[in-house]
């Protein structure tokens, strides 16, 4: 156990922070729902950071750290899938989209060079082409498109690789959500220190302090659990981390909006750039029910049950 960054991890994150510095400031003026920024995506691709998990001396933990850091910015970028899943399928550049169900909206599909489609235990890898999808508008802070058909070049991954892809996708989900809850929380804490009501900052009221303190615990636990899952590269830990944050984000999102008042309802205020991404991730990959099933299956494999009362009664009769 060592919760302190190694020298290499520190150097990596410091360098990545330099790239993120251009994207920490919310975009000025009124803008739409979507947080994604093409320039950010291009800069990430060109930087080489996206391939960190495949580089010697680094791995999925460091990729998860970068994903979490990137997601804490109000400006969005596809990083989780390309950094964590990409190395497993030879995807080295550009956006990788993950489709959890055909016919449903998919994040980053219109921008994607490659696509993973999950269908029960199977995972297909494909190159999406025009006509395979249609862009969607909506209230998500992710760019969304609907997958209309399975792309022509789709091929099924071997079972062991499919399992690894699914595991990394869930780790990416947990890491991205951890960064998003951090970004939303930090923004809200800053706001309640500035916003005055009843002659004092909102942050002086204990009712607000307590809820933001509870949320601070969520932020830190989500981060550590995502990193632990990434370090172990373990399906059970991944599901635990994802379930935790998918469950806890509901309270945190509510609190952040409550404490931002009506400013949090406006598009000029950047809170939605985090929270409306989180709202999508809340149900991603099957949502809490799916992660809970994974956790339960891995933690409590089905035991043989006792004879049931009905069976006994039937026998007696």
């Amino acid at each position, binding site marked *: 156990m060592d919760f302190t960054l190694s020298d290499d991890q520190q150097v990596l994150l410091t360098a990545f922070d330099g790239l993120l510095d251009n994207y920490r400031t919310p975009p000025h003026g009124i803008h739409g729902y979507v947080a994604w920024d093409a320039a950010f995506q291009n800069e990430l691709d060109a930087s080489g950071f996206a391939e960190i998990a495949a580089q010697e001396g680094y791995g999925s933990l460091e990729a998860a750290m970068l994903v979490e850091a990137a997601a804490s910015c109000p400006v969005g970028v596809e990083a989780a899938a390309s950094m964590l899943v990409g190395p497993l399928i030879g995807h080295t550049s550009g956006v990788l989209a993950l489709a959890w169900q055909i016919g449903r909206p998919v994040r980053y599909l219109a921008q994607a060079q490659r696509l993973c489609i999950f269908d029960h235990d199977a995972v297909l890898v494909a190159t999406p082409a025009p006509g395979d999808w249609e862009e969607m508008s909506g209230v998500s802070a992710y760019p969304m498109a609907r997958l209309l058909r399975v792309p022509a070049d789709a091929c099924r991954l071997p079972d062991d690789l499919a399992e690894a892809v699914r595991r990394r996708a869930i780790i990416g989900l947990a890491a991205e959500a951890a960064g998003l809850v951090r970004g939303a929380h930090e923004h809200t804490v800053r706001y309640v220190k500035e916003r005055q009501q009843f002659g004092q900052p909102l942050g002086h009221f204990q009712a607000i302090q307590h809820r*933001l303190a509870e949320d601070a615990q969520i932020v830190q636990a989500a981060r550590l659990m995502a990193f632990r899952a990434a370090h172990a590269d373990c399906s059970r830990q991944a599901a635990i981390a994802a379930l935790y944050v998918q469950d806890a984000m509901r309270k945190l999102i509510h609190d952040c909006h409550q404490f931002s008042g009506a400013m949090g309802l406006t598009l000029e205020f950047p809170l939605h750039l985090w929270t409306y991404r989180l709202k999508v991730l809340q149900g991603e990959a099957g949502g809490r029910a799916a992660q809970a099933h994974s*956790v339960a299956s891995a933690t409590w494999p089905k035991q043989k049950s006792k004879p049931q009362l009905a069976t006994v009664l039937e026998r007696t009769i």
Partner: protein
Amino acid sequence: MEFGWTEEQDALRARLKAFLAANLPDDWETTASLSPGSQAVTDFSKVFCPKLAEEGLLASHWPREHGGNGATAWDHFVIGEVLWEAGEPRGPQYYNVNWIGPTILAYGSEEQKALHLSRMLKGDVIWCQGFSEPSGGSDLGGIRTKAEKTEEDGNRYLVNGQKIWTSYARLAEFCFLVAKTGPARRDVSVFLLPMDRPGITVRPIASVVGDGDLHEVFFDDVEVFEHERLGAEGKGWEVIRYSLDYERVGIPRYALALRTLNRAVAELQDEDCFVPEAELAAATALTACEAARMLVYETVDKRMRGRPDTGSASMARYAVVCAERAVADFVLDWTPHLFTSNDAPMVATHHKRAIAAGLAAGAAEIQLNLVARDVLGLGV
């Protein structure tokens, strides 16, 4: 950053489990369902802890010159997880090794270290914590118990006042006592007071936690001497903060919570009732335990590097309270018969101990105050 255990730590865990298998009596789980401060558990702790000491596992994380064997805070936490999950056979003596001993190590005189640490290492001394009072529980600055120096002897204080909710007091030999030594709110000092001093009266309070957990302690002109004061006069607040940082994350409470959850799920599976709704509730409770584990580990990691900051210890403590509650609620929702019967003594044990988690070592709301102030910088 990495999250694995070393081979040595895995071996330590296995060794301790084998030790428990050899040294816990067959009826231990029934005994453990009593309070750690009960006569039965206290008596057993005086048999168990000396054996644990012989194995070098009682206070292995203390410095070698004070009887430890160079083990790390992580090793001590591995031991704590295994023992708490087993129902804490150290009884009240977990106090000694988790926070009283370390606080004496940090602030004690050589004489105090020689006297008290050696007794703790033998595994047969019980301490109680004289913090809360009718006028000051979570608000520790509101205590009224005074230790006033006598005019005729500047080396001697007389203690007058009352403590309440004091765990383990009836069977304790010493009290880690906080008393006012000056007029200001922060003029407090800590004393290592023998409980057999004339003028001390202990009255048990019946509680849902079990026998031996709660007491009132009255002090009427109780003598305590300068050499029994821990740290400088009037500097008790620093000593208290140090001890609380250790106490708040001293118990790996999530370990017994997880065992309880596993027991409840096994019951549901056995009855073919582990339906998707139960699966979601159980897995969610499990994640609360794992969140608590991660935040506690972070605090242990900080302890490895010096001392934990109050903010992270408070955050960890609050997460532990949430985890305890999540599991207790799961049992009540899905396997209420385990709560209402004696079929699973460790489930009852968990419930009795969990109910106090949000109050002991400072109410959960005080932890939130500290997180808001020290971590988020709110209200300052």
